[in-house]
C-alpha cells in the first residue's frame, strides 16, 4: 500500500502534537508577569523544545534512510511540495536550536527536565541574546505560516483532489 512507515507516521504526529503545544505556550509565557509559574512554564517550554529537537534529529535520520511513498503530482505542485517540506524540516531543527542558543546567550542554561544540564553553546551576551530572541520569534512565525500552508494543502488533496496524500499519513492507512 502507498503509505508511510509506522515510524514516519508516529514521528510526524508526535512532533506535530508537540509543536501545537509548545508554540502557544511560548506565546503565552512570554507576556506573563514574572512569577514562579512563569519560571516553570519557561522550563517546560525549553524541555519540550529540546525533546522536539531530539525527535526531529531521529526523524531526519529516518527520512534519509527511508524513501517516502511515491506520489505523482503536477510538476509545479511537486516543486512547491518539496520546498515546503524542506523548509519545515529546516525550521523544526532551527527553531529549538535557536531557542537553545538564545538561552545560552541570555545566561539561562537549559537543564533538561531539571536533571540533565545541556552545554551552553554560546557565552553570555545580552545583545546577542536579544537578537536570538528575535530570530527565534521570526522563525516561529514563518513556521506558523508554513504549517498553515501544509495543512491547507493536505485538506485540498483530501477534499478537492480526493487523492491519498492525506490518508497515507493517517495512523490507520
Amino acid at each position, binding site marked *: 500500500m502507498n503509505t508511510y512507515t509506522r515510524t514516519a507516521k508516529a514521528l510526524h504526529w508526535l512532533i506535530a502534537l508537540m509543536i501545537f503545544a509548545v508554540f502557544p505556550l511560548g506565546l503565552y509565557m512570554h507576556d506573563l508577569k*514574572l*512569577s*514562579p*509559574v512563569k*519560571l*516553570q512554564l*519557561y*522550563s517546560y517550554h525549553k524541555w519540550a523544545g529540546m525533546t522536539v529537537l531530539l525527535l526531529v534529529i531521529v526523524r531526519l535520520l529516518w527520512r534519509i534512510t527511508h524513501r517516502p511513498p511515491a506520489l505523482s503530482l503536477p510538476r509545479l505542485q511537486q516543486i512547491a511540495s518539496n520546498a515546503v517540506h524542506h523548509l519545515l524540516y529546516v525550521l523544526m531543527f532551527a527553531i529549538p536550536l535557536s531557542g537553545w542558543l538564545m538561552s545560552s546567550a*541570555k*545566561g*539561562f*542554561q*537549559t*537543564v533538561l527536565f*531539571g*536533571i540533565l*544540564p545541556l552545554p551552553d553553546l554560546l557565552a*553570555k551576551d545580552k545583545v546577542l541574546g536579544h537578537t536570538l530572541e528575535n530570530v527565534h520569534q521570526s522563525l516561529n512565525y514563518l513556521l506558523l505560516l508554513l504549517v498553515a500552508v501544509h495543512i491547507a494543502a493536505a485538506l485540498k488533496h483530501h477534499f478537492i483532489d480526493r487523492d491519498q496524500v492525506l490518508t497515507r499519513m493517517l495512523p490507520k492507512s
Partner: protein
Amino acid sequence: MNKHIITSLLLLAAGSVQAVEYNQLQAAQSALTFGYKQMGVPLTGKFNKFSAQVSFDPAKLAKAQAHIDVVLASIDTGSTDADEEVAGRQWFNAKTYPLATFTSSGVTALGGNRYQATGKLSIKGRTMDVTAPVTFQSEGNRGVFDGTFNIKRLAYAIGEGEWTDVSTVADEIQIKFHLVVLAAPVKK
C-alpha cells in the same frame, strides 16, 4: 657605651616597627556575587554597589573588624525583569530596607592563609549569625579576601507569598565575596 648604642637601636627599631593593617577597600576591584538554582538551573548574579570598612592585621586577629553595607537595589541578576522583581516588596523590599549589612564579631585563624569570620548578617530587618571561611592573600600593601558562605533566603523572608516556593527558586543562596583592601601602615 656599647650597651647604650644597643639600647638606642632597640628603641629606634621598636619605634619604627609598623603594623600592617589592611583597611582601604578598593571597591572597583572587589566583587560581591551570589549563586542559586532556579528550576534546577545554576544561576549567578552580583551586587554592583557595596561599601566596606575593614581593618585587618594578620598579626592582631583579635582586633580584626569588618562592616559591609550592600545596596540591595544595585542587584544584577542578569535580567531586568528579575532585578525589578527582587527589589520589590516580596523580595528585598529595598525601599524600606535599602541595605544588607554584615558586621563581624570575630576572626579566627585556621592555619596558613585561611581564616574563619563570624558575624551578623542583617537583611530586611532580620539578623542571623553567619560564619564564612575566608582566605587572605597579600602582596605588598594589597590584600585580597575571598570567602563563600550560604544563607537560606526564606530565613530573611527574601521571597514572600508565591515566591516561598523553593522548587522554582531554591532556598539556598551562595554568597561569594572578593574584597581587595590596601594596607596603610599604622605606627605602633
